[in-house]
């Protein structure tokens, strides 16, 4: 059975900041944040893969915390500040995590990559020192089907080292 599709959906207004820019938009009340970011704002860097909160591909930062944007309603983002993958690089210069993901080959098909980078960003924002366990726990909500994770772990460790030394 396909999921039943509701006929009439009331709209609601959302005012939020995305990557430092303020937006006010009308959205259907049942619209997830993921859909708002991708289909309304055109920020397609954030990916949907399981659409039920299992794979972490849609991870964004909401007021600095990692959120599965497929599970959070767009309406709940009202008055909040959101950072997506598009908000990390400054101009042509990559964020150190982004650069590390390329350097270690952590992006193969690349579909899980934006979500993983956001999870790693939150981890490195929080902690000057990270243990192996903290690293794995921070990333365990992000599924990657290609790499077997070794290059991802290496990328985050490299990014951590580089941000410590700079």
């Amino acid at each position, binding site marked *: *059975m*396909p*999921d*039943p*599709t509701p*006929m009439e*959906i009331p709209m609601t207004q959302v005012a939020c900041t995305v990557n430092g820019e303020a937006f006010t938009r009308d959205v259907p009340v049942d619209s997830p944040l993921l859909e708002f970011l*991708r*289909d*309304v704002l055109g*920020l*397609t*860097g954030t*990916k*949907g*893969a*399981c*659409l*039920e*909160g*299992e*794979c972490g*591909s849609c991870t964004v930062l909401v007021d600095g915390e990692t959120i599965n944007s497929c599970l959070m309603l767009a309406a709940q983002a009202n008055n909040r500040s959101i950072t*997506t*993958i*598009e908000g990390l*690089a400054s101009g042509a210069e*990559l964020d150190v995590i*982004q*650069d590390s*993901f*390329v*350097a*270690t*080959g952590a*992006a*193969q*098909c*690349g*579909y*899980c*990559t*934006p979500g993983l*980078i956001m999870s790693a960003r939150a981890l490195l924002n929080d902690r000057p020192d990270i243990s192996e366990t903290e690293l*794995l*726990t921070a990333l*365990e*909500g*992000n*599924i*990657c*089907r*290609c*790499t*077997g*994770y*070794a*290059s*991802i*772990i290496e990328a985050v460790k490299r990014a951590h080292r580089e941000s410590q030394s700079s």
Partner: protein
Amino acid sequence: MIQQVTTTESDKAQDAPIAPPDHLVGKSCRRIDGKEKVTGTALYGADLFPNSAELFASVVRSQHAHANITAIDTTKALEVAGVLGVYTHADVGGTNIHGLIRRDHPALASKRVRYLGDAIAVVVAKTERAAKLGRDRVEVSYEPLPVIATMEQAIADGACKLYPEGNVMGDKRIRKGDVELALANSHVVVTDTFFTQTVDHAFLDIEAGTGHWDGQVLTLYVAGQWVHEERRLIALALGLPVEQIRIIQPVTGGAFGGREDISIQIYLGLAALKHQGKTIALRYTRSESMRARHKRHALKIESTFGAKADGTLTAARIVVHSDEGAYASTGIAVMRKAASHATGPYRVPNVEVDVYGVHTNNNPTGAMRGFGACQMAIAYEGMMDRIARALNMDREAFRRKNLIQSGDTVTTGQHVDPVSIGHCLSKAIAKFKERPYPGNDKLPDYMRRGWGMSAICFGLGYGDGFPDCSRARVEMNDDGTATVYTGGVEVGQGLLNTMMQIAGEDLGLPMEHMRIVAADTELTDESGSSSATRQTYFTGNAVRMAASELREQVLDIAGIKLKVHPHEITLQQGWAFETAKPDNRVSIQQICTEGLTRGYSLKATALFKPRTITEVPQTGQSPRAFITYLFGAHVSQVLVNMETGEVKVERHIAAHDVGKAVNPQSVEGQIVGGVAQGLGMALMEEVTYKDGRIMNPGLTDYIIPTIKDLPPVEAIIVEHDDPGGPFGAHGVGEPPLIGAVPAILSAIYDATGKAPCELPMNPERTWRLINDVRENDPLSKVF
């Protein structure tokens, strides 16, 4: 007369010393698609929506796993506000049929549905929501037929037939020597039956894309694995000439065989043809993706092996039943590959193999990484452990006694040379022994540790005489850069870098001077599919041949400019210079300018089409069923909780002979990633059906490995020059998964003392194994 000389920027560059040689083959060049992937600017199928979609499509699917369709009523769907059209089989202009080997799968079912993923209609609307509302209101009347849920039901007397010719899709056999006699004369005869499960590819990038018909050309942005073949199939189904279809592969988030069959292309094409000038978008949800798509074959493998008292294998008799699901997909090829890999890299003089493909009302089964060879490795490696134990021999020593050596034959009778399986096994075991094995001494009573190994082989390419070829084009550009054109599809494996590095190596160009255009049916020539571990070997060879031809042109022109014989010229870092006098040099850019004035094309195309020989149908024997063989060996160490049945992989070592690692980082990525998928298959992944309905169509219930399930995988790249491969390379895609599963099962056997024969070994199955409780035992009802 003194001539005034002004020094320009380019003249300065002329004076700079030439950078030292930078061999692109063997170098972990950064992925050229890396930056767009880490910044979120890479455009996958679903990312084309927000900017370009004008209309949206949705697919009506069967409500029954097996039924006759008696009526399709679209009236109510057309009444939904925003719905512009509802299209059924009656609206399809061509054959309305697809299928990679047999054309047997209706794009839109007309009279009968054979699984729950069968599509019946396509709804087109102004919004995605309206399209889905319309989908829910299409009324289909059915006359239900008995659902064939299992292979046993399919072959039972009086079973309802999915097809007039019956439920057995086909068979494949191997006959070599006299198995009966050899088993009678064996010191031990060991028998067991293995059950492998249905597996989903679970690539993350759900099927999505766009279609547009301008009255002349139907343009589809849809990810597949073989754009040129997809174009042929779509053309037949929709009744368009091939030239009127253009497929452009968007950035693709994984495939693993799951994009080999046609997915959304025909639905999008049909919708676009009906709405000329509009861009139509279609995307699945995860559950629709899992319910519609083909799967990995579940196999029942009955194995009997005999051996002499000294451990020499004498004979193997293997009967395989394969759940083909509702349609043929690539099932026939999977059966062939299963048969031809039935005894793996072992010397078995007498072999009988019978593989039967059986239709059920489950999802069609087709390509997935390993393609039949993977399931057979579970059986033959399982048997090696069992026979070694029956003979009280060391597992490694027993394997070594029977592993093929260069010049020996595999299951199909093909002589293989070089054979590096012994070397791979030595490398993996040596790596394992670098660290002391902790054993069971410090563990609590309910925990047991064990380790195991696997040795596997893999025939590369389609094989069996199936036409297999790749084309490539390499062109010099005016600015001294070179562009590779290939129909090959990048799905994440690193094909783009591989092809650029191969061409760049031949042309002596740095990576920054290399360009690539891939997987666009308008701009590139056919390069076969990204499957069967074939792209590095096949397309790599075509690229190498084209680049070599171009290199000859460049050397000729350089010879004229430098006034030396072309053999005395080195190409390096964008320069051509006299090898003995590097100051006598000319840039590749100048060569391009010079070449054009002298009538050189500075373009080259190549076709790589090696010969394989079809197996004799009665015996399955062929002197060259596969173009080359790949080898790999794994060691796995596990910790088993004997009370809960949980298995944790503590260490995993994978050694693979890749011929030559063109990009070692990509090769390691394939090895470690393959092990991860193998771990998933060994311990957790299983598509479960109830009367043809998938019970776990989402990543909540279909469990795939997370970062915490994987140990640090130790990848070992073994390089034995493959004389037929580009720069000695052959490939690596599938073998790492094939080797991983049996090594983990071998370790569970070592830890528990019980031999696993069902997959996946999730906690419940492991607990049942430890406690000798089979699933059909009365005791199982307690749980």
